[in-house]
């Protein structure tokens, strides 16, 4: 185990895969520590995160194939349950499922029965009755996906496409994939995440992933109103000045201002935000010359990032999109695999218990 530097780290120390899956709170892993739901980065051991990245490697070159599919999820039904608007995330999940040869159903919740008063549980059970094998869920309430995973029929995998302000684990993993592919070993990297950290479920997942994967240093940069002190407990250093926070970093991740989530007057104006925290070519010079620039999208030119940077040679923003499909394919195929293995394990357990009953006469 690497020795930690003196950056304040959270209380969670790396736990073995076995210990984590034995933890009843960890609904994400099978008895053998294999992924069977993908809800949050928290609680997943480094080996699982690395397995996701390695599996995605095999899916990244699908574009070269004439038939851009693998038959892994053939005959499986994948349902996109998006309770919050998203064209981008939903389309990449749809594409990922189709490339795995699954049958995809996208439910537009705004026009569905929930507006007629149906509860979340009833919607779910109705869809289960149609024989769904996987739900990809985006919800405005933090923790909704955990609730679903704990209630759903066995052998149905749940993938979190974003819950409230809590987590967006697939986005974090595609960001980790981007960093690993272009920068290599995490233990040598300083990573800065800039912008509306307060409202960002992406930032929370990214910080967890970076720490689990052993990044040298994780920095959060933003105005004080969007950067509560409690975030230091996640395992990151907080900065309110770009000049200080960006110094010598290897990776700069810009976040979008989540105006739709802001209740109070947290910022004087977008122009002020851009002046202090927007990533311009000038500010990028504080980082290392070979630093990479990332953004989960959609980008707001002139609000958090200058066009010259977004379109510049250090930007990997468009690469992130294609890596996103590969990561989602990896997570989906691993979860179905984990569910299958769990099912086999349960059957074996039931069979051996039955035998014990007979022989103990």
């Amino acid at each position: 185990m690497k020795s930690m530097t003196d950056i304040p780290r959270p209380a969670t120390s790396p736990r073995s895969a076995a210990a984590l899956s034995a933890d009843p709170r960890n609904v994400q892993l099978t008895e053998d520590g294999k992924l069977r739901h993908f809800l949050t980065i928290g609680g997943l051991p480094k080996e699982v995160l690395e397995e996701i990245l390695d599996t995605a490697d095999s899916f990244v070159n699908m574009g070269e194939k004439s038939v851009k599919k693998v038959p892994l999820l053939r005959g499986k039904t994948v349902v996109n349950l998006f309770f919050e608007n998203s064209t981008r995330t939903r389309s990449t999940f749809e594409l990922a499922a189709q490339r795995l040869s699954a049958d995809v159903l996208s439910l537009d919740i705004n026009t569905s029965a929930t507006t007629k008063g149906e509860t979340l549980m009833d919607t779910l059970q109705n869809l289960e009755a149609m024989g769904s094998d996987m739900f990809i869920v985006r919800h405005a309430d933090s923790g909704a996906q955990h609730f679903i995973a704990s209630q759903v029929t066995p052998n149905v995998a749940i993938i979190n496409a974003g819950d409230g302000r809590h987590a967006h684990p697939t986005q974090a993993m595609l960001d980790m994939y981007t960093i690993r592919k272009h920068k290599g070993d995490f233990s040598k990297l300083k990573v800065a995440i800039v912008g509306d950290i307060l409202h960002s479920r992406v930032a929370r997942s990214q910080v967890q992933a970076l720490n689990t994967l052993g990044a040298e240093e994780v920095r959060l940069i933003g105005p004080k109103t969007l950067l509560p002190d409690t975030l230091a407990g996640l395992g990151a250093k907080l900065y309110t000045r770009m000049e200080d926070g960006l110094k010598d970093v290897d990776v700069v991740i810009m976040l979008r201002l989540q105006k739709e989530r802001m209740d109070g007057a947290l910022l004087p104006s977008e122009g002020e935000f851009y002046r202090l925290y927007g990533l311009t070519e000038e500010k990028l010079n504080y980082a290392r010359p070979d630093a990479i620039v990332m953004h989960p999208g959609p980008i707001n030119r002139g609000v958090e990032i200058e066009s010259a940077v977004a379109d510049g040679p250090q930007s990997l923003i468009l690469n992130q999109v294609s890596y996103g499909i590969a990561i989602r394919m990896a997570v989906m195929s691993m979860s179905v695999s984990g569910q299958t293995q769990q099912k086999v394990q349960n059957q074996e357990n039931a069979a051996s218990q039955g035998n014990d009953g007979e022989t103990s006469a």
Partner: protein
Amino acid sequence: MTTHTNLPDVNTLIEQLAQQLKQHIQNQNLNNIALVGIHSGGVWVAERLHSLLEQEEALGTLDISFYRDDYTRVGLNPSVKPSSLPFATEGRHIVLVDDVIMSGRTIRAAMNELFDYGRPDSVTLVTLLSLPGRELPIQPDITGQTLTLAPGERVKLTGPDNLSLELQTAQ
């Protein structure tokens, strides 16, 4: 009573395979063949054939984990490697190489994957060893040696350096 199976020398076998393959290519008029090995043992054998045949074009490698027919029962193989076909398979004469053929399911999976990349003009199957136990009607065009193992015995190619065959007995 178990009899110990005598395992052939791999290097001799591969040289033999190379000769047979050259003859086959001539007989069948296969111009501009492309070699493709199946991970991991097939890739090691294919690499040797690649140099013995003095192939200019890069070697293709296939990992069939995503095309296995037991995924719904067993799940994903933990050590999946990326497949790499650095040439268009459309219209090519492919020589598919594996270390051992037994049930034939690996070869079926490999062909399914190959065809998803593009339609080849032909596929020739070369295996180092052929064991009995076919569950599908698939046979190699060229094979180094047909082996019959004693009950409970399995054979494994070790590599990537100093290729050799190892006998394993299940206890």
